[in-house]
C-alpha cells in the first residue's frame, strides 16, 4: 500500500481548527451535564414520587436511544422551536446549537447515574450526623454529601468526558465541520487521501484520550492516597 502523509502538515491548521468545535461541545456538555445530572440524581433520590419518576423516565429514555438518533432528532426539532419562540429567519444555522443541546441532554442522563452512585457511596451516618447538628436535608446534601461525592466521582466524571469527546465526532452527520469532517470529508476527499486521514485522525484521538486518561489515573492515585 502506498500512503502519502505529506498533505497533513500543509492542512494542519485548517484541520485542527475543527478540533475546537469538538472541544467546545465537550466542555459545554461536561459542565451542563454535571449540573443537570446532579439535579436529576437528586430528583432520583428524592422522597417525592413525581420527581423520582420524572428522573427515572428521563434517564431510561436517553440511555435507550442511540446518540446518533438524538442528534438527528434535535437537528430537526431545535430549528422549529427556535423559530417558534425567538422568531428567527428560517435560514439561521442552528446545527451547532442543536448539537450542543442534544449532547447536553443526552450526557446528563449518564452523568446523573454516576452522580447518583457517588451520592449513595457517602455513608448514611454522614447525613444522620448533619441532621443531628440541626442542618436541613438540603444543607446536609450541599455541605456534607455532595463535596464528598464529587471527590470520589471526579475520575469517573472525567472518564465520561473522554468518552463524550470521542462521541462528538458524530456531529459530522449534521455536516458540521469538526475535526474528523475536515480531515476526512474535506481534505481527504479533495486530495484522495481518505485512508491517510482516517489513520491520522485516529492517531490524534488516541494521543489526546490516552494522555487525559493517564492524567485521570494520576489524579485518582493522589486523591485515594
Amino acid at each position, binding site marked *: 500500500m502506498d500512503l502519502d502523509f505529506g498533505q497533513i502538515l500543509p492542512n494542519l491548521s485548517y484541520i485542527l481548527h475543527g478540533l475546537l468545535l469538538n472541544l467546545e461541545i465537550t466542555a459545554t456538555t461536561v459542565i451542563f451535564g454535571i449540573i443537570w445530572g446532579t439535579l436529576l440524581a437528586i430528583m432520583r433520590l428524592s422522597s417525592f414520587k413525581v420527581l423520582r419518576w420524572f428522573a427515572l423516565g428521563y434517564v431510561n429514555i436517553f440511555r435507550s436511544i442511540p446518540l446518533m438518533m438524538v442528534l438527528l432528532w434535535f437537528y430537526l426539532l431545535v430549528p422549529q422551536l427556535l423559530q417558534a419562540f425567538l422568531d428567527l429567519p428560517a435560514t439561521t444555522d442552528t446545527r451547532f446549537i442543536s448539537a450542543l443541546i442534544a449532547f447536553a441532554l443526552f450526557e446528563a442522563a449518564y452523568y446523573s447515574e454516576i452522580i447518583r452512585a457517588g451520592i449513595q457511596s457517602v*455513608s448514611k*451516618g*454522614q447525613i*444522620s*450526623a*448533619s*441532621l*443531628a*447538628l*440541626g*442542618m*436541613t436535608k438540603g*444543607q446536609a446534601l450541599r*455541605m*456534607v454529601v455532595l*463535596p*464528598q461525592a464529587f*471527590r470520589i466521582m471526579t475520575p469517573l466524571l472525567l472518564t465520561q468526558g473522554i468518552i463524550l469527546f470521542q462521541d462528538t465526532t458524530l456531529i459530522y452527520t449534521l455536516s458540521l465541520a469538526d475535526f474528523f469532517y475536515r480531515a476526512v470529508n474535506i481534505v481527504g476527499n479533495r486530495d484522495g487521501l481518505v485512508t491517510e486521514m482516517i489513520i491520522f485522525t485516529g492517531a490524534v484521538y488516541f494521543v489526546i484520550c490516552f494522555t487525559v486518561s493517564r492524567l485521570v489515573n494520576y489524579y485518582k492515585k493522589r486523591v485515594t492516597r
Partner: protein
Amino acid sequence: MISLENVSKWYGQFQVLKNCSTSVAKGEVVVVCGPSGSGKSTLIKTVNGLEPVQKGKIVIGETEITSKATDLARVRSKVGMVFQHFELFPHLSILKNLTLAQIKVLGRSEEEACEKALSLLERVGLLAHADKYPAKLSGGQQQRVAIARALCMDPIVMLFDEPTSALDPEMVNEVLDVMVELAYEGMTMMVVTHEMGFARKVANRVIFMDAGEIIEDTSKEQFFTNPQSDRAKDFLAKIIH
C-alpha cells in the same frame, strides 16, 4: 427534659420498639443497655427524630418531637448526638467540623464560632489538631472531636449512641473520661453503652432493654445489686467479668 410515652416502631412487619416509656430529668445521666438487637440504638435515635416512630409521644424540653408541626432541625440543633462511628466530616478540617453547624445553623459569626470551637477542642485536649483532617486522628481522638462538635451547639441534652464500641480498647478511657467530666458538670445525658464501669460511676438510672422492650428502668444501685428480671441478670452475668 426528655419523655417517651408508649413509643412503638415497626420495620415492615417487625416491631423494633414495643410500648417504650421512660423519662430523663434535667441533669440526669441515664444509661441504656441490653443485648445487641434489643432496640437501644433505635430508641435513642427516636429521641431527636432521626428514627421516626409510628406510635407514641416523644417530648424534649417543651417540644413534641412526634408532632408533625415540629421543626425537627430546630430541635436537633439543641440536642447533641455522638455516634458509634464518630461521623466527622472527612472533607473538612477539625476546626471546620466544629464551626460548620454553628455558622450555618445557629448563624454565629465565623469569629465567634472559631472561638467556641477552639475552647472546646482545648477542653477535650485536642487543640493542637485543629487544622488536621479527621483521617489523621486516632479513633479515640476522633470521638473526642465529635463530642466537642456536639457541645459547640450549646446543647440542652446529649445523646450518645455506643460512643466507645468502635474503639480499640486502649482508647476507650480517653473518651469515657470526657463523658464523665461532662456528667459531673451537670449535663443531661442519655447514653447507650456496654461500659458498665461508666454506668456505675456516673449514671443516675439504668434502662435495660431486650427485644424492643424496656425490661428494667431503675436506679443504678438497684440494677447492679438487685436486678429484677432474669434477662437482666443473665445480661449482667455475661458482661461483667
